[in-house]
């Protein structure tokens, strides 16, 4: 059975609160799979958030910072308001509340992070690659998660994804076809 957004949001909130990082990653992957199947942008965003929260929890320089406790509470509080709107099935307010969670994640990154590219942006690309692996086109996968298509293309190139599904026509066959087309002109 496909779970409701409120159910998923509560799960993400509990897993983050209890530092269950591997389960956070697992729920993120499930959300992306369902988002790809349903073209559900809310689920996709929640999937990216869950992935970003899992990444943050695994980084020692974040969780050992004296600021971490307050920052974590802010995110949990934003997730709670998000949960209320999801329970009321108010999709517009739900999406707006998700943005507050994203702002919280980006604030953690800007204050405690070491890289120019934010954890949230990296999470979008990572989870978009998962959506691409489920069979969506590159542009559709990028659109669903809000990832940059160029970054997604580069990321996918460094995975083994294209090695797992052999092409029907190989390079030699396509080159032959291309020669035939230009020669026919």
């Amino acid at each position, binding site marked *: 059975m496909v779970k409701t957004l409120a159910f998923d949001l509560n799960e993400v909130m509990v897993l983050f609160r209890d530092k269950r990082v591997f389960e956070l990653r697992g729920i993120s992957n499930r959300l992306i799979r369902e988002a790809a199947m349903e073209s559900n942008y809310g689920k996709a965003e929640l999937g990216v958030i869950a992935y970003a929260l899992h990444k943050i929890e695994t980084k020692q320089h974040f969780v050992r910072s004296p600021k971490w406790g307050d920052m974590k509470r802010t995110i949990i509080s934003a997730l709670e308001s998000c949960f209320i709107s999801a329970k009321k099935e108010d999709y517009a307010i739900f999406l707006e509340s998700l943005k507050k969670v994203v702002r919280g994640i980006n604030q953690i990154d800007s204050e405690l992070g070491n890289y120019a590219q934010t954890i949230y942006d990296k999470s979008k690309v990572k989870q978009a690659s998962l959506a691409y692996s489920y069979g*969506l086109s590159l542009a559709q996968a990028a659109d669903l998660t809000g990832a940059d298509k160029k970054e997604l293309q580069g990321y996918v190139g460094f995975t083994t994804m294209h090695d797992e*599904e052999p092409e029907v026509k190989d390079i030699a066959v396509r080159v032959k076809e291309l020669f035939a087309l230009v020669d026919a002109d």
Partner: protein
Amino acid sequence: MKAVIDTGTMITLSSTCLMNVFREFVKYNHIELLVSSSVAEESVWRPLSNKRFALNAARIKYAFNTKIVNVIPTSSEIQSEQQKILTLANEIYSTEKGGQLKIIQAGEAEALAIARIHNAHALFIDERTTRSLIENPARLRNVLERRQDEKIMVDEEKLIEFKEMFPQLKMFRSVDLIAMAYEQDLFNHELEHGKLELEAALYSAKFAGCAVSENEIDNYIKTIHSK
């Protein structure tokens, strides 16, 4: 020959520094290469303002300005055709739980619309899904089914209608273009004409995101005789 090129392929060629090979390939084979204005927006105008992507975008802009690639302005005809393709493509596959699977996006549909309107015989596209939809929809169904672990249903009528829209369109990737350029001895504007250079160029395109496997590259390289 008229051909359409997708953003991904342009980005692969520019990010692998193979724009000179690309330029020679297009000129030598008298290819009239078309891109949609949204591709131009996505691959040039928007990334030009981002320092991380600006050099690649400037390389592609040069290809536009020197008329190696012709930008086709959006028209009501393109928009209407694009919408038709987008709707049809996204109604072919469905699952019991999730309903219709939205697999392609407006940009890819626009490239297909331009190919149809301008009677192009080739579409250069590096990503796998749109290519599979045209060439081998059964393979795409298998990928969707295996990856999503769900039974995928196919609306055969819509699939036939979609396939009939592109009876002559052949699909190619940046690696196919690079390989043919090598076979035509067009590497000399950028690289020496050698097996090592070819292999490096093909792998570089793969790592830039072109949908090609290591096996495919290795098998092709084995057929090439070193000079």
